[in-house]
């Protein structure tokens, strides 16, 4: 409730103010009561000629006064004294009106009680206009003027804001609604976005979340993803500029997965879930539209892959044989987090025969070994998305994530004779000479293991990454809750 007169609207310093609309039966009922009050200023929300018989009747069809008074119900009767609101009543209750106005015998022939109606400021068809009118001033981004005959979606294509698929026009109302998804201020800087090193504010991220098709409740995940991707460790600039085809992928952990309806079950890495599809896309649109990272400009990928439109999924924590990925990376249990990592498109790995963890681990190691090149060790990172039916084998054997990593590390020691340049008739490989000791396929910490997917199908996925570590890219995890 507003307690002080708003300077922008003209309200009396002392006396009674009523807010009504002709469309409200209760307001029409109290029309003679208002006329009988010795002194009242009546603001009318719809018909400037209503109510009749009022000396000081004012047109509030623009709803400025109703908004300033934060009127939710009509009729509303407000008392001012010395420029401050000292009381308010809503609807019609004869005794209450008599007491509030100090006028006896008011509405003696009316029913004793009638509830009020909703203020026009709460009409759904007014919501968008009022949202922009009341909060649009908080937006700082340049406004694009779209001509009346222009198609909005086509106009956004023409101006280069699209990744190739249609985008949702980021109208001020949509951006403001998106910003309701976070408590952070629109002008707060989230990150400096490569390649052009442009500051991304919460507002800019929200605009791209709208473009991508996100709902407001996804915004904290998008903000955390942008924060994670724009770190030196993740090195989004290098990942963008490399001729290798990987792009940023996101794995979401914690309660927010269910709160926003993400998919970690069947087709977890695929299409069909709005949160999965649009959160990853929003991150890529931030890199494109804020950072200036566009294909065939600074994005030098020789091939790329379809997941560069957006690659985001949730981990199946409930069905996992392991602790959640985020927890294994230092996030406290029960907290929501997003992990960004360099990713090619996922490739299926079938093993429908192995019944022991040892045998299955060997299959998985074979798949992981193929990342980048079967003969190249040490350079590229990777991820393994373990499907539930493969996860079951490790759960039943009592293997935790650390055990599986240890076993895979052992299996991924490459025999130098197999990987030397020229070996197997393939010129690619490591230079001859040096130590005869086996060489690890991955750098320490160079591959992650996640758990997701449908309950049927002994098909896990190998997701190749990019050059790992300094000069390349390392996965980065950030908590989501600070961005709510």
């Amino acid at each position, binding site marked *: 409730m507003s307690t002080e007169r708003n300077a922008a609207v003209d309200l009396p310093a002392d006396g009674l103010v009523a807010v009504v609309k002709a469309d409200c039966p209760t307001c029409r009922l109290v029309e003679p009561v208002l006329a009988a009050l010795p002194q009242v200023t009546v603001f009318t929300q719809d018909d400037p000629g209503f109510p009749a018989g009022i000396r000081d009747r004012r047109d509030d069809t623009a709803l400025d006064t109703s908004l300033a008074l934060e009127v939710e119900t009509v009729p509303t009767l407000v008392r001012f004294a010395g420029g401050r609101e000292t009381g308010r009543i809503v609807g019609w209750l004869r005794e209450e009106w008599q007491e509030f106005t100090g006028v006896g015998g008011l509405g003696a022939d009316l029913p004793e009680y009638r509830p009020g109606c909703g203020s026009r400021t709460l009409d759904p068809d007014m919501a968008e206009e009022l949202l922009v009118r009341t909060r649009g001033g908080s937006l700082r981004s340049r406004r694009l003027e779209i001509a009346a005959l222009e198609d909005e979606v086509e106009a956004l294509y023409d101006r280069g804001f699209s990744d190739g698929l249609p985008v949702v026009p980021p109208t001020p109302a949509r951006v403001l609604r998106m910003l309701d998804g976070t408590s952070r201020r629109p002008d707060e800087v989230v990150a400096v976005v490569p*390649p052009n090193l442009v500051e991304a504010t919460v507002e800019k991220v929200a605009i791209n979340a709208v473009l991508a098709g996100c709902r407001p409740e996804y915004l904290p995940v998008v903000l955390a993803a942008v924060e994670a991707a724009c770190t030196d460790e993740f090195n989004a600039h290098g990942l963008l500029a490399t001729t290798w085809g990987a792009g940023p992928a996101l794995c979401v952990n914690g309660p927010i997965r269910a709160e926003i309806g993400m998919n970690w079950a069947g087709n977890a890495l695929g299409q069909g879930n709005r949160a999965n599809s649009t959160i990853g896309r929003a991150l890529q649109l931030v890199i494109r539209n804020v950072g*200036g990272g566009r294909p065939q400009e600074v994005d030098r990928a020789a091939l790329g892959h379809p997941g560069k439109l957006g690659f985001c999924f949730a981990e199946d924590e409930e069905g996992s044989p392991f602790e959640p990925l985020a927890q294994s990376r230092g996030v406290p249990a029960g907290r929501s987090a997003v992990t960004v990592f360099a990713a090619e498109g996922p490739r299926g790995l079938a093993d429908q025969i192995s019944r022991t963890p040892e045998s299955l681990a060997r299959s998985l190691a074979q798949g992981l070994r193929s990342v980048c090149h079967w003969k190249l060790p040490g350079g590229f990172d990777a991820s393994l998305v373990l499907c539930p039916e493969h996860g079951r084998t490790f759960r039943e054997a009592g293997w935790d994530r650390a055990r599986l990593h240890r076993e895979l590390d052992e299996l991924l020691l490459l025999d130098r004779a197999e990987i030397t340049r020229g070996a197997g008739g393939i010129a690619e490989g490591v230079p001859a000479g040096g130590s005869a000791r086996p060489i690890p396929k991955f750098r320490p910490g160079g591959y992650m293991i996640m758990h997701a997917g449908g309950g049927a199908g002994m098909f896990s996925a190998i997701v190749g990454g990019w050059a790992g570590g300094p000069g390349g890219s390392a996965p980065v995890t950030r908590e989501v809750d600070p961005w709510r």
Partner: protein
Amino acid sequence: MHDFAALEGRGVIAAFLASTQFVVAASAQARALGYREVPAVFVPHPIQDRTDSEVRALADAALAEIIAAVTRSGQGRR
């Protein structure tokens, strides 16, 4: 190109060096960093599969152009 800008910002004379496949990327990044012109030398593509001696030959062939780029009056113009 960011390295070029960082070096130039510290008063270190620099030039941008890449293979011919990166002409467009260099131009886009230079524009984004506010440069109208950057002293740049592009050597023939590819790079990745070159032997050490081939890379040395590329460097030798580009040397005169690189020296010219770093000694030309007026470095990167914004």
